[in-house]
C-alpha cells in the first residue's frame, strides 16, 4: 500500500498501536515487524509514527518504573542531576529499560508535588527533595529488597 501519506498511515496505525500498547504495555519490535507486514509499510515508517507521539513507549516497562520529574520546579531544583545519577547507575537513558527488565526510566513533566522538588516517582510512590545521594540509596534499597524476595540468593 505505497500510495498513502504519512497522515493517512498514522490514522490507520494509531488505533492498532494503542491496542498493542494496552495489551503488551509497550510497542515491541515484534509488533513493529508484524504491523510492517500487515500494513505494507517499512518498519521505519511505523517506528517514525510511534515515536512522534510521546504516548507510545518503545521499551517494555521495567518491574520498577522510575519517573524523574523535569517540570519547572524540579528542573530548577536539579532534576537533570538526578537523571544523570540514574544514567550512571543503571546505564539507561529515558525511554529505556535495563536489559534484565528490572528498571525502566521515563522523564515526566510536573507530577504535582512542586513543593517537594526535585521529585522522583518510583512505582507510583512520590519521593520528594531528592539528592543524588538519597536517590542512590533508594535504588540500592530496591535492589536489596528484590534480592531478598527472590529467596535471599
Amino acid at each position, binding site marked *: *500500500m*505505497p*500510495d498513502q501519506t504519512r497522515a493517512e498511515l498514522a490514522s490507520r496505525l494509531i488505533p492498532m498501536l494503542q*491496542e*498493542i500498547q494496552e*495489551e*503488551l504495555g509497550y510497542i*515491541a*519490535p*515484534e*509488533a*513493529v*515487524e*508484524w504491523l*510492517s*507486514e500487515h500494513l*505494507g*509499510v*517499512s*518498519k*521505519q*515508517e*511505523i*517506528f*517514525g509514527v510511534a*515515536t*512522534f507521539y510521546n504516548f507510545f513507549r*518503545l521499551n*517494555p516497562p521495567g518491574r520498577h518504573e522510575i519517573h524523574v520529574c523535569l517540570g519547572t520546579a524540579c528542573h530548577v531544583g536539579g532534576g537533570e542531576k538526578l537523571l544523570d545519577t540514574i544514567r550512571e547507575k543503571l546505564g539507561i537513558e529515558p525511554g529505556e529499560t535495563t*536489559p*534484565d*527488565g*528490572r528498571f525502566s526510566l521515563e522523564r515526566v513533566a510536573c507530577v504535582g508535588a512542586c513543593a517537594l522538588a526535585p521529585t522522583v516517582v518510583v512505582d507510583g510512590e512520590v519521593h520528594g527533595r531528592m539528592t543524588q545521594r538519597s536517590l542512590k540509596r533508594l535504588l540500592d534499597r530496591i535492589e536489596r529488597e528484590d534480592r531478598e524476595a527472590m529467596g535471599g540468593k
Partner: protein
Amino acid sequence: MPKMTIDGREVEFGPECETVLDVARSAGIYIPTLCDHDELEPYGGCRLCIVEIEGLRGYVPACTTAAKDGMVVRTATEELMRLKKEILQLLLIEHPSACLVCAEWPACLQYRTQAYRAGRVTGCNTCPRRDDCELREVVEHIGITGLDYTPEYRDIPVERSDPFYDRDYNLCVLCARCVRVCQEVRGTGAITFVKRGHETRVDTAFGTSHVDCGCWFCGACIDVCPTGALYPRLSKWVGMPESEEVTTCMLCGTGCQFRADIKWGKVMATGPAPPDSAPNGRHLCVLGRFCIPPLVNAGDRLRAPHVRRDGEMVPVSWDEALQAVVEGLKGVPPGRIAVLGGPHLTTEAAYLLQKLARVALGTPDVASRGCEFASLVYRVLGADGALDRVAQLEDISRADWIVSLGGDFVESHQVVAKTVYGAVRRGVPLVHIGQPGKNLRRWTVEDVLVDEPVAPAVVRVLVEGSGAVEGVPEEQLRRVIDIVSQGRGVVLVGPRVLELDSPSDLLRDVLRLLGDDGRLVPLFLNGNEAGVVRAGAVHDMLPGPASVAAGAASYEEKWGRAVAAGADLGALREKARAGQVDAVIVLDGSIPVDGFEGVPFIVYQSPFPSPWLEHASVVLASAMSIEESGTMVNHEFREQALKAVVPPPGEARPDWEVLAELARRMGAAGFEYGSPGEVWDELAGLECRVGPTDTAAGDAWQPVPREETEWYPRYRGATLAERIEDLAVLIEALPGRRAPPPTESLEDMMREAREKWAARTEEV
C-alpha cells in the same frame, strides 16, 4: 498562458510549473532552498524558501505553494531576508559551521588544498564536503557572516559500523531528503525521522544497523544530502576529483550510466550520471555506487603478459606472449580447441572472440558462461519477430499493470526496482508470482506464493483467463486475471526462470499474456549477456544473432569457412575431461576450471587472477570495461557506450586489440581493425535471424542451477563478495530478507513478544 509577478517582473508559466518555486526557477530567479529537491515531493520543512504573496497572510514556502495566475510574489524584501537569516542561524547553531562564516575561507581554499582526515567533522577543514557543500551556497546567498548565538555541538556518536558509508548526524540539518528519497523514490523506507521537535533525528526502527533495517546500500540518500552527514567511507578524504567521466556499469544487465571521479589517474569514486541518462537517471545500485573502485584498483590485477617456462610463470613482452600462443596452437586440430568467453566482454571483444574461433582457428566450439538468458530471449522472441516487445524502462512507467516472476527483482535489479516502485506509487497494480522478499511484499497488491516450477502454470491460467493451480486460492487467481485483463501490461521475467525445464514455453505464454501492446523486461543478471549473444560468442548462435540453421550459409560465404553449431560449455567440459581437448583459450576466469585441468595448452586472458592461472601456459593481461571503449547491450537491448576513462594497469591491453592481433599473427584475413569502432561497424548492421523451427524441437535446454541464477556478482574471475567485505555483509543478510510472510495473528505475535521478553529477563 498564466502569468505572475515576481519581484516586479512579469513571468509567464506553463503547466510544468506546479509551484511558485518552479515558476521563479523557470525565470532564473534564485530562491534559497534546502529541503526541496527536484526528484522529491514538496516538503516545506526548512522554510528558507519563504516568500511574500499579495493577498496571503504571513509568509509561505514557495516550494509548497501552488502557482496561480495573477499572483504577485516578492522573494527578497528586507523583512524576508531578516527572517531567512534568523531561520538559517538557528539551523547553524547545531551544525559545525565555523567554516561557513569564517573570514579566512578564500585564503584557506587556496592554501589548504583538501580536507584533513579526521575522526570528527568540526568544521571546514575536516569536512569531506568542504568543496561542494550545498549548505554553503545557501549561507553565501543569504549572507551570514557571523553567528549571533553560541554554537552547540550535538556530540552524537558517528555511525561507522555499517557497510560502505558513514553517518555523522552531527552535520544533519534535518532536511529529510534522505528519508524521502529512500521512501518515495526507492521504496525502501530504511530510515525515518524519529521523535519530534527538538529531539527529531534520522534513525532506523529501534536504532538497528542499516544491514538489519533493510537498506540496500544504493547510496541515493548520500547523493541527495546537502551536507557531509552521509559519506562513502572509501572516498571520504579524497577531495575533489581532477576529472569526471560518464560511462556504463557492466555489473548487471541494466547497464547504468555512472559518473567516475578520477584523481591521480585512478577512479576514486563513482556516483550518479546526469539526471537524463538512460536508463537509470540518477540512480544506481550498491555495485555501481560502491563496488567499482575496489574492483578496478585491486592490487592483484594482472598487469603484464606471462608465459610458463619450466613450470614457472615469467613476465614477457606482448610480442613473446602472442608468439607463444601462436606456437602453442600450431598443429592442434580445430576439433580439439575450445574458446570460452563470458558476459563481461565488450560486444566488440565477444565478436572478435567468436571470429577468432570460427575463422582463424576454424573451430565451432566457442561458448560463453552466463549468457543463457539472453540467448533464450533472442531465440524465443526472434523466432516470433517479437524483439521489439522487449521493454524500455520507460514502458514500466507507462504500464497499466505489472507482473513479475523468476525471482525477487528488488534484490537482483535495484534500478529496475526503483522504476517499478515509481509506477506502484502512482497506483499501478503489481503482482508477483513466486516468493517475494520483505521489501517487494510491501509493493505488491497480490503475492501468488508458489515455488518457481509452478509459476508457468499460473501464467497459463492468466493467459487462458480461467483454470486452477494447486495451492493457489481460486479467488486470488480470479483477482489477478481481472488485473491483467485490462490495458497495457509489463511482465518482468527474472533469471530464476532459467531453472525451469522449459523456460521457452513460459516466455511464449508471457508474450501471449502481454498481447501486442505489452512489454517484457528480461532481467539479465550478467552485464553484457545480450551483447555477447548478439556478437555470436555462444555455441549455437552466429553474429546478429543468427541461429546456425538460419545463418550458416551466409557466414560460410562471408568467411570462406565451414560454419556449424559447436558444443556448449558443459559438453566442452566433458570433452576436456575425456582428453579430447588439446587447447583452450579462456577469457572468463569465473568459469570453473573443473574438467579442463588436464588440457595441455591453456591461454588465460583476463584482468583478474583466477584458478585458471595455475593451469595456464600463457597469461594475457587485459583491460576492464572501464579501461576500454566499446559497446554494452543492456536488457532493454539498448546499446550503451563504454568509455576508457582510466588507463589499464601496467601493460594490460584491451581484449579486442589482443584478439585481433592474435588472429593476424595466425595469418587470418579480415582482422585489420584500427579501433573497436571499426569492429562495431562490422557487427552493428547484422540482423537477428532466428527461424521458428530453431526453437521447436525442445532446443536441448539444460536448466541452469540455482547458484547461477541468484544475485552473486562475479566479474571475469573476480568474485565480488570475496574481495569486498562490505558487499559480503549485505549478501549474508539476504536470506533474512527473504523470510516468508508471517502467518501468525496479532494475538500470537503479542504472546510471543511477551514470552521472548520474559525469557530474556530471566536469563540475565
